[in-house]
């Protein structure tokens, strides 16, 4: 039997069950560590009226931005609109509901969602527009906001390697929001660059345990770079 084999046959199967009006939590920071092909599959399916929870929303023609172009998103919970003109346009025009959420609060909301913590207090956002309508409480002479956790119908995650049981390893700063996203989906779908046999990953070095992963697929990735900053290779450190 293969009760723990999470590998699915194709991207259609990976995103099966996603319906109009659902909430999708996505890993990734900017264009780094984003589940590129799962996003493409959502675009292909044409699912509408989605609530997307993600730190950013890609750029106009890549990442989650492609879902904005097709008007598949009705609400976004994000910390940064960034250099996405269509995002900014839809937000300013009111077509798109945007819940701007501080980056650390967003990360913690996802973690809390996955960890069975319905709400927590944080000093972040006290006295700012983020705090409007939220409970403020004083602990040790300091004010804190009550923030509620987030869970999604789906979580879409990009990892580097996985074993078939869904144990995940991330690579460098492509980790970012992915580990929390992975815990916060009713159905968590993960795409990776390589799938290995159970037992090949060091148990001490697994970033996300397979218990959080429902579906797993191997993909190929463009990994577009947003800001290609380089130093000349002839300077002292580059020699």
């Amino acid at each position, binding site marked *: 039997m293969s009760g723990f084999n999470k590998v699915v046959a194709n991207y259609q199967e990976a995103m099966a069950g996603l319906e109009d009006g659902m909430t999708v939590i996505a890993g990734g920071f900017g264009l*780094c560590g984003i589940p590129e092909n799962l996003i493409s599959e959502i675009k292909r399916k044409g699912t509408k009226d989605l609530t997307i929870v993600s730190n950013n929303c890609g750029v106009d023609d890549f990442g989650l931005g492609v879902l904005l172009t097709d008007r598949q998103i009705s609400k976004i919970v994000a*910390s*940064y609109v960034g250099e996405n003109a269509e995002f900014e346009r839809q937000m300013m025009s009111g077509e798109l509901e945007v819940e701007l959420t501080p980056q*650390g*609060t967003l990360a913690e909301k996802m973690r809390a969602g996955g960890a069975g913590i319905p709400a927590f207090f944080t000093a972040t956002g006290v006295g*700012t*527009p983020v705090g409007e309508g939220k409970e403020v409480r004083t602990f040790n002479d300091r004010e804190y906001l009550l923030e509620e956790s987030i869970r999604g119908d789906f979580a879409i995650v990009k990892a580097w390697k996985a074993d078939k049981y869904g144990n995940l390893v991330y690579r460098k700063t492509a*980790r970012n929001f992915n580990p929390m996203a992975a815990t916060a989906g009713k159905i968590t779908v993960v795409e990776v660059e390589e799938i290995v046999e159970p037992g090949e990953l060091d148990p001490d070095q697994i970033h996300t345990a397979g218990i959080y992963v429902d579906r797993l697929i191997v993909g190929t990735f463009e990994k577009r770079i947003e800001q290609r900053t*380089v130093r000349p*290779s002839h300077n002292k450190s580059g020699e």
Partner: protein
Amino acid sequence: MMALTREQMAKRVAQELQDGYYVNLGIGIPTLVANYVPDNMEVMLQSENGLLGMGQFPTEDEIDADLINAGKQTVTMATGASVFSSAESFAMIRGGHVDLTVLGAFEVDVNGNIASYMIPGKLIKGMGGAMDLVAGADNIIVTMTHASKHGDSKLLANCSLPLTGKNCIKKVLTDLAYLEIQDGKFHLLEYAPGVTIEQIKALTEGELVVDSNVKEMVI
């Protein structure tokens, strides 16, 4: 009036570094501070997307799409770096473990309020990690020009823009001066070379206190 250049501002901020500091540098002038770390000192840069020990930009050969900083720029890792999730990164920040945070702003006021992320109707980029950074750090230096291009003061009695954080800023370095915020007032600590106290007063809307030990900035 000889306002500081961006590089001079970064140099002055760099004087506040201490050996062994973990530092988070925001985008813009704060980023330049990394270029002026004194030779006899080691600091480690925290990038809030999940990297402690940010190195310099990569060479063409070293570019790695999986390794960027909070400004989405390709970077490298310094020796002894570590990588972690965004939740862990902000646990570090919110928990007060970062020794110094340097970031830009649109406005700061005499109560230590800061506005830096939004101009209603004009600019809505989002706060990113800035709200967490100002709430989490004890030791923050705001870097910005003293006044706008139109000559409007950015050191106010009350911030006019939506706040990034409340009562959290204690130190401001502008292109004209280095100031401390205390007891609802700006305290002038240093003036830039070639800038007069009168010029600073004229461009500071919030109450400005000039202590007797004010001195010229050394860069």
